[in-house]
């Protein structure tokens, strides 16, 4: 069948490609969104975040007194601690309209917690009191401002000093400035901060430090960065319907592929019934027929997986610098490939069942 029925083979391979591509692009977008959700935490370089009590995600903290800095820094296990500000603002466009943004203020001179990837400029631009960064992907939505342009954010004038590359948050535009300017923009008093970022000294136990911080700061939460990132992603997955939406899309992608593989392989076996009957008549056992269909399915599945991942890689490469968030976790593609093979064989089950049931006597009719 593989050699002779090229259109059937192509159809079955297309089914496998559908499983790989439809499912793959869905989860890569989901992982891209995950990356955006917890980008601030993941890229902060901190081991522990101090948030206001009952914080379940990175965008939902209240404010904390700055005096906590001394209490935290006094712990012998702490390498450094910095306060940052993260709050909403509104950027004024050239046409007079405004657009909501998330303003992040990081402390000078370390600029810890600041942007991590630049298209133009570097993190040092935030040492300038008036300096601010925007992301390259947001520029067109914000009227294409250029470096050096004066921009108004929540009625405060700032200067576009750097352009970041793919530094975005789940809630949209992330703009970075220094702590003082961020407080001005967000109207946060000088003695308040949104979070404290903490780096533990090398070799110190993070969980023990978290326990100590909870004792020192009973009215705040001390959360390890990985846990805060996980909580943030979980919060959005559960509360926004993203999880069920993507899960459903993945399921539909897999089902579409399985249906295509099932129909094409089944049709192929139906079309080749006489060949299988001849093979049975001249001495083939049921298991020999099964082996033939198995190898055909394996060939189709492997070809489909290869081409599907090639297509997926092209897609991901094509959208890498666009607004579409994408991301891949290294262990996912092998698991995806494995399940695609399983799905392909699930699709081939009906064909296999039909093939082994073909009676050799039918060749004489």
């Amino acid at each position: 069948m593989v050699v002779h029925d090229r259109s059937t083979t192509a159809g079955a391979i297309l089914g496998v490609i559908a499983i790989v591509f439809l499912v793959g692009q869905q989860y890569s977008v989901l992982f891209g969104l995950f990356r955006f959700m917890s980008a601030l935490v993941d890229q902060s370089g901190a081991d522990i975040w101090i948030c206001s009590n009952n914080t379940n995600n990175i965008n939902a903290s209240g404010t904390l007194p700055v005096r906590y800095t001394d209490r935290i820094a006094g712990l012998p296990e702490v390498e450094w601690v910095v306060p940052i500000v993260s709050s909403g603002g509104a950027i004024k466009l050239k046409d007079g309209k405004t657009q909501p943004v998330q303003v992040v203020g990081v402390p000078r001179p370390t600029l810890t917690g600041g942007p991590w990837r630049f298209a133009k400029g570097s993190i040092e631009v935030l040492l300038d009191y008036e300096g601010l960064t925007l992301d390259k992907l947001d520029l067109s939505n914000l009227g294409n401002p250029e470096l050096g342009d004066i921009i108004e954010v929540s009625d405060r004038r700032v200067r576009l000093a750097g352009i970041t590359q793919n530094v975005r948050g789940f809630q949209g535009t992330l703009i970075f400035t220094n702590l003082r300017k961020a407080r001005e923009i967000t109207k946060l008093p000088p003695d308040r901060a949104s979070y404290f970022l903490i780096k533990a000294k090398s070799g110190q136990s993070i969980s023990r430090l978290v326990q100590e911080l909870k004792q020192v700061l009973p009215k705040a939460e001390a959360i390890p960065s990985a846990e805060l990132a996980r909580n943030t992603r979980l919060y959005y997955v559960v509360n926004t319907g993203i999880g069920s939406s993507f899960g459903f899309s993945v399921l539909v992608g897999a089902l579409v592929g399985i249906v295509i593989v099932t129909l094409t392989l089944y049709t192929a076996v139906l079309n080749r019934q006489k060949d299988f009957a001849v093979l049975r008549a001249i001495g083939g056992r049921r298991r020999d027929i099964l082996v033939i269909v198995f190898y055909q399915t394996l060939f189709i599945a492997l070809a489909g997986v290869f081409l599907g991942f090639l297509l997926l890689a092209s897609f991901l490469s094509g959208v890498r610098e666009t607004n579409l968030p994408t991301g891949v976790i290294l262990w996912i593609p092998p698991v995806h490939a494995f399940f695609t093979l399983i799905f392909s064989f699930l699709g081939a089950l009906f064909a296999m069942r039909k093939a082994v049931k073909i009676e050799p006597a039918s060749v004489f009719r």
Partner: protein
Amino acid sequence: MSTAVVRLQEIARDFFDGKQQRRVLQPITLDLFTQEMALIAGPSGSGKTTLLTIIGLILKPSSGKIFIGEREVSRDSENVKATLRLKKFGFVFQQADLIPGLNVMENILIAAAVQGQRVPSAVKKRAKDILGQFGLQAYAEARPQQLSMGQKQRVALVRALINDPVLLLCDEPTSALDVESSNIVLDSLKKLSADERRGVLMVTHDPRVFPYADRLIKLENGSVVFDSRRDKERGSDEENS
């Protein structure tokens, strides 16, 4: 001297047509020999093909016993029967039924590899030799679609011979052939039946075939109504007595 390769003892076959059980083959006792080209003839529905498929261990008889040599095989498992088909019988079907995705040589060799075996180089050489004997050496790489019906049927004959069977079972192999191709195939079968290690059994209602036969078995309504060998043996028995 010819020897019995297959013996049928009181073989009968019933079919259930959805409403009732129908007996399509009455109890038949029959021996098939080497060095013999036997024909099973009879009108449509007389049970010719059913008998052929039972002899070829494809269809299970409802009652009776089948022996290959001295061994009873009718109760063997499906897998054992498949292996016996592979090793003892060669099949030639009405429409040749070559596999279109394979070339001529692959179509022949698949009969040696159908149970997943590696094909030894001796078998490949044998395939080339037999192809040469049938004047088809130039078509080894050709696809079945590129062959005439007569050529296809000769390839099917080579496929049937590749495992050196003791009995060639042919289901109306000339019915789709013109006179010239039919004569070539029948001449080939006749030569093959002259081998002391091999017999040929053919189902046909093509009268052109009758002159080639060493033995004629006539079936009507599932019963053997005439067997030239039996009648001959009876005749010589009567003469002796």
